[in-house]
């Protein structure tokens, strides 16, 4: 790891100010992507601003028809939260599948979304449920947030503060994990909003990151059942084709995982 300067911020405002002072600053949340990448010398931030101890960024709140997860809340805390388990069990289940227990003790939802790894789990839930990403500057709709591999609508120095999930009428998640990394080879989140709109998001499969699958959405809009997908054709256009799986294999997995998500 190259040399760096570590700063621990005690508030979001302080973190944003610290960020502007470094020549090439990076925010650190759980650190379970940034630190490995720094160890490989693929990233060499001059300054690291630790957001992990900012109290206003930790916690889960339910209000009316939404569950709000603050950005530095760990995967473990989402997975075991009674609030999340009751309101959106599929989200608690998704969090319980991320990495392994030690990773879930450190990794955070805000970090996962800001990084937007194409095989991360949370982007599928955020996009399928039409969540809103709140930052220290604005609110961003899920449909406008994800911009391809490791790219998001976040501006330089902008900090995710929370994610607000509208409680869906129905939701499910199924993932085919890579057996070593536990990242999604394909993960599918299916959701039906309270107004009846079906949204389906896939992670792990596409070269353009998390994406919605309209063929699956329209089939489920007509009939919310695994059987409704039996004859749906999934295109392998733009899907990853690598040593972990061919693009047609991944296309097949999208359908199978969608069906499992519906069953779960």
């Amino acid at each position, binding site marked *: 790891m190259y040399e*760096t300067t*570590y700063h621990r911020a005690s508030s979001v405002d302080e973190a944003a100010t610290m960020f502007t002072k470094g020549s090439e600053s990076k925010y650190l949340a759980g650190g379970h992507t940034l*630190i*490995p990448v720094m160890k490989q010398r693929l990233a060499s931030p001059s300054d690291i601003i630790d957001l992990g101890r900012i109290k206003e960024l930790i916690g889960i709140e339910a209000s009316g028809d939404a569950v709000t997860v603050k950005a530095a809340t760990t995967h473990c805390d989402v997975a075991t939260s009674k609030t999340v388990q009751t309101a959106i069990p599929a989200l608690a289940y998704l969090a319980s599948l991320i990495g*392994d227990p030690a990773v879930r003790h*450190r990794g955070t939802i805000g970090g996962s979304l800001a990084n937007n790894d194409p095989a991360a789990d949370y982007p599928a839930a955020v996009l399928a449920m039409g969540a809103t990403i709140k930052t220290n500057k604005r609110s961003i709709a899920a449909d406008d947030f994800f911009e391809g591999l490791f790219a998001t609508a976040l501006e330089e120095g902008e900090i995710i503060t929370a994610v607000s999930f509208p409680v869906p009428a129905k939701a499910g998640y199924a993932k085919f994990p890579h057996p070593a990394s536990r990242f999604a080879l394909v993960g599918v989140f299916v959701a039906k909003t309270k107004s009846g709109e079906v949204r389906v998001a896939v992670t792990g499969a596409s070269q353009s990151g998390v994406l919605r699958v309209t063929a699956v959405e329209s089939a489920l809009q007509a009939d919310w059942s695994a059987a409704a997908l039996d004859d749906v054709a999934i295109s392998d256009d733009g899907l990853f084709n690598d040593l972990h799986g061919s693009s047609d294999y991944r296309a097949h997995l999208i359908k199978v995982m969608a069906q499992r998500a519906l069953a779960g």
Partner: protein
Amino acid sequence: MPTVDLTINGKAVSVDVEDRTLLVHVLRENLNLTGTHVGCDTSQCGACVVHVDGRAVKSCTMLAGQAAGCDVTTIEGIANGDELHPMQAAFRDNHGLQCGYCTPGMIMSSIDIVNRYGGKLDETTVRHELEGNICRCTGYHNIVKSVLDAAGRMKVSQAAE
């Protein structure tokens, strides 16, 4: 160099380290607590697992600065004098190790598992929960037996307190 203050195995310690120093290197190189191992150095194998504020974490994926002010427990901190922790005793009695390299991380993760699940552990749960700890000797069979055995012993010892 910046100073990092933290509590390790119940003792307040203060170390002067570069900001890029990982927690595992503070433990091994500054404090000579070499029971915590570095296996893969890529956050996958779990040989470096310690408890930070009561939770199992991979100390190769945490900066020393992030642990400042935290309560850290390593494999050296779990026995009660000469009396092994029930998890250590169970690993010994069930032949839960061969070369022993992964064992400190296995034991720290396993204590965390029992702490979270209490007596509600079964073989499937133990195998699932140990997915962040890799062992290349045992085939896991005796490790799982050890954790289940220890879960019973820890329940008894907690009840006795």
